């Protein structure tokens, strides 16, 4: 967080291979790319091509079977790297019973930003009105906005969005983030306006691709 820290390579992925147990073919078959601060990257391809797997590798949920990945010049699992990374997940990964605000408070606490004003972050993404609404009662659109809000907590240096909707707020936040030096990775099966917004595209085909 903070422009002063934005030096060096944000992401260096070299020949990433992910082979899930029991899988006949690798989910990722040698993916390489490099992101400098302020860079953007759209990851696209057909359903099942490995987009979400690649993002899960970047956020540390899936470990590569082969290849190397570094974030901000260090190991991807290092706590300093996690703290500088914001992730907006796909679908609705929010546990029923929590309010939208609770989800953001939880993500903020886990990421190490306990003083975050969750209401303000929701306002930024156009979801200020649903702060006290339980997540299972959110419209799909509001869920996608909440996902975007999760990624913005702490104004991270690397923003990773899995299948975001192309709201005006999404475009604004990506533009602003890149302008302040944050790298942005977006995975989407339907590129829409993202290629122009992000500058570079990585098209995956059966888990393989180079940006």
């Amino acid at each position: 967080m903070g422009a002063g820290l934005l030096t060096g390579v944000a992401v260096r992925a070299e020949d990433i291979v992910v082979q899930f147990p029991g899988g006949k073919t690798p989910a990722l078959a040698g993916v390489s790319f490099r992101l400098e601060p302020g860079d953007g990257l759209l990851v696209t391809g057909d359903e099942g091509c490995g987009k979400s797997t690649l993002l899960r590798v970047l956020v540390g949920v899936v470990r590569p079977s082969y290849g190397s990945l570094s974030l901000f010049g260090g190991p991807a699992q290092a706590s300093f790297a996690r703290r500088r990374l914001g992730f907006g997940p796909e679908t609705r990964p929010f546990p029923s019973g929590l309010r939208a605000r609770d989800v953001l408070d939880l993500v903020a606490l886990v990421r190490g930003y306990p003083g975050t004003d969750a209401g303000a972050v929701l306002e930024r993404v156009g979801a200020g009105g649903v702060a006290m609404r339980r997540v299972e009662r959110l419209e799909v659109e509001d869920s996608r906005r909440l996902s975007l809000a999760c990624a913005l907590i702490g104004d991270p240096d690397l923003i990773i969005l899995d299948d975001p909707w192309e709201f005006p707020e999404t475009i604004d936040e990506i533009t602003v983030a890149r302008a302040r030096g944050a790298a942005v990775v977006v995975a989407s099966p339907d590129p829409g306006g993202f290629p122009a917004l992000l500058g570079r595209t990585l098209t995956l085909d059966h888990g393989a691709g180079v940006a």
Partner: protein
Amino acid sequence: MNARRVAALAAADFRALLRRRWMLYAIVVGVVIIVLVALSADTSIGTSKLDDLRRGGASVLLLGGLAVALVFGGSAFERDRTSGHLGMMAAAGAAPAEIGLGRAVSRLVALILVMASWMAAIAVAAGALGYGVDARFLVHGAATILNMSLVLGGTVMMASLIGAWAAGGFGLIVYISAQAIVNIQSATDQGVISSYGGVVRAVSAVLPNAVVAPVITEMQLRNVAGPAAPRLEIDGKVIAVTPSNTYEVLLAIVWVGIFLLATAGGLRRRQL
């Protein structure tokens, strides 16, 4: 392991549990059954009123506690893992061990809350029937909470490794084996079983024992304890299940701790 993160994850899971209606239903259904038990006991004559209330209350604590422990433990991970929530927490920087421990702690607190509400209802019922605070039965209630904590611990530990139903099966085995150890140990101590005494004592000293309160032993001997402690006979000889000593209580607490820590380790092996 970051204690602050574990506390945040536990608090969020507990808050979500509190807002789900079935937790409220568990509390309400238990309290309603206890009220009905108390009304039924009120129609009894003499000292059996207290026995009736204790028998009904012990049944609610045992059977209801088992159900709640198995459901809370078994459901700790599966749905949120499938939905991607656990992965989202891992992406935010929570270690799998922190997620596992946070969940286990919140489920344990929820179980204690539900069972404590039932115990409060039993205490109020005892007062309404004119027996004041039934301190002896409160000890039994605390013992049952500890036993159900063992069940929940075993269940949540297995739920971190395998599916919810299989985890529930393991939790049930934990309870059955803990109770069996106590029964066999009591039978050995009372000379009803003479073989393998050393093995029984060794197993009893290491594996979790079900914690038994004095009041339930006394009720069991009079055959008024109901499903919570049915009369135990071997070769026609009545076995008095021995009330737990301090070591056995501490052993059960240690095993709950072991299960919780193993839960933290278990989740590290799963794809979040």
